[in-house]
């Protein structure tokens, strides 16, 4: 299935909801990562987090562009001219930058969620999505190495690093479960072979991340998922994030920059 014009309306909307969640998550985590540029613990880490930020924002542009083909506004319009309730990201990515432990834990949980999602979407019945997923999946390989290496390095290195990593995991975990909150229209997407059910993705994700976290002496908290992001219900942090993000674009001083 590759022909956009012949996609029936309910399905177009359902696919759009999935893409919107993916695009919003990428652009926001990219923004949060970019807040480290110039401030990371070592120069090498600074350079690496800047690369990751660029990749994530690049992926957001890709997903927003697919949305544009489905009839949504262009990528800049989407990123710069919507308000918090219109964003469909899981709350994980809007939480403040925090310390380096929170940054690497969040990135790790996110990267692996992205991995299982992309691998599933490579088999999607909608060809443009399957092709884009394959491309992004190749680019994610470095992120996966990077973030799992940080978990292994900091999880049990020193007393302080362990405490910080555990605190970061306790905070991030329930929000990370929100990455698998089904976006509206899941039943239709599953029926049409666009994606497998979110519950299945979550199970695959847990099977990947649990052993890595446990090997780093981290304890996975018992916590209920924090849902709401996919319905536009966000933490207060999204509003301040967007105020920063959209400051110049929405200043009214110009149309093009």
């Amino acid at each position, binding site marked *: 299935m590759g022909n956009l014009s012949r996609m029936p309306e309910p399905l177009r909307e359902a696919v759009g909801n999935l893409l919107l969640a993916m695009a919003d998550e990428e652009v926001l985590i990219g923004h949060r990562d970019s807040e480290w540029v110039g401030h990371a613990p070592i120069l090498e880490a600074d*350079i690496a987090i800047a*690369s990751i930020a660029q990749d994530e924002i690049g992926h957001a542009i890709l997903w927003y562009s697919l949305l544009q083909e489905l009839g949504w506004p262009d990528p800049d319009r989407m990123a*710069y001219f919507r308000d918090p309730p219109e964003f469909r990201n899981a709350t994980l990515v809007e939480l403040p930058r925090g310390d380096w432990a929170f940054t690497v834990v969040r990135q790790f949980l996110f990267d692996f969620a992205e991995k299982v999602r992309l691998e599933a979407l490579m088999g999607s019945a909608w060809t443009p999505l399957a092709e884009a997923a394959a491309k992004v999946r190749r680019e994610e390989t470095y992120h996966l*190495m990077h973030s799992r290496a940080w978990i292994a390095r900091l999880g049990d290195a020193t007393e302080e690093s362990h405490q910080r990593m555990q605190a970061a995991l306790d905070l991030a975990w329930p929000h990370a479960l929100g990455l698998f909150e089904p976006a509206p229209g899941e039943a239709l997407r599953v029926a049409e072979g666009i994606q497998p059910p979110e519950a299945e993705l979550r199970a695959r994700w847990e099977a990947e991340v649990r052993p890595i976290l446990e090997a780093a002496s981290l304890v996975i908290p018992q916590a209920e998922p924090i849902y709401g992001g996919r319905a536009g219900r966000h933490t207060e942090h999204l509003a301040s994030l967007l105020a920063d993000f959209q400051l110049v674009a929405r200043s009214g001083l110009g149309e093009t920059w």
Partner: protein
Amino acid sequence: MLTYRIHGQMVPVPEQAPPPQEGPEYEARLAEFEARIARGEKIEPTDWMPEEYRRQLIRMISQHAHSEVVGMLPEGRWIPHAPTLRRKLILIAKVQDEGGHGQLLYRAAETLGVTREEMIEALLAGKAKYSVVFNYPTPTWADVAAIGLLIDGAAVVNQLMLAQGSYGPYARAMKRICYEESFHIKQGYDAFVALATGTPAQRQMIQEAVNRWWYPALMLFGPSDRDSVHTPTLLRWRIKTKTNDELRQEFVDQYAPMVLRLGLTLPDPNLRYDPETGHWRFSEPDWEEFWQVIKGNGPCNAERMAARRRAHEEGRWVREALAAKAARQANGGGDGRYAMASL
């Protein structure tokens, strides 16, 4: 205290020029060294060199490295507010490159026996200098565009000259950096033109930013030749191949017409093209202000250093954890299942 390794021993880097070395053997070596430089040969880390040559290089290269790293701050501050996704990507990439240049330059300085940690400590202790220009504020998005054109433009004029220098590792680092900087200027010019050809409000923004950055760009080349104590030595050993004033003139000749062509003005009533010499005449920066900023009294010195110190302090536990982990793995502890090549 900045130290470096000579004959396997850690020795403090002298703050003043060392007493002149003497004796016929020294004279012969010096003559050979200077003859090599005169022939255009590169001096490599293991070659003999006068201690003053080493000292000057450590001073210059470490200052240059610090400038790259501190230089990440004034522009990096606008990454969160970049007005389009494309500009955001470009700005992240640009600031990242500056970090990469810092890394390259620290490595070049390390070939002279000094370590990165020591250089960074000297910076954070307020003992090492970095370019004065990064102590000026970036109050608007237009400052990013003005820096991208004027400061990067000035830096390239300077670095193209340094790429011709006599010390191999520094010259090679400069060559690579110049290549990447040409991309920065292109992007800086693009963002600059977008504002200069935009709405009246955008034109006003960029004009004000140009007014702010013109004289700092001229300061980037360092003090006037009249007051530059290092220049004669640096020229003699081809650490530099042009004087500060020569480079400043080159920059004005290249960039003043570029800004004026876009319908903007420069904050210098004396600026004019002199058809007789083929050069632009211009006013020198306020040297009193320059020395004040060097001494730490510029508008953002305290803020920049505070940001570097904060990042250093907040990252301390990470560096300690990495060291502890590395030590344990070296001792055969840890399972190393996820060990990857060091960062």
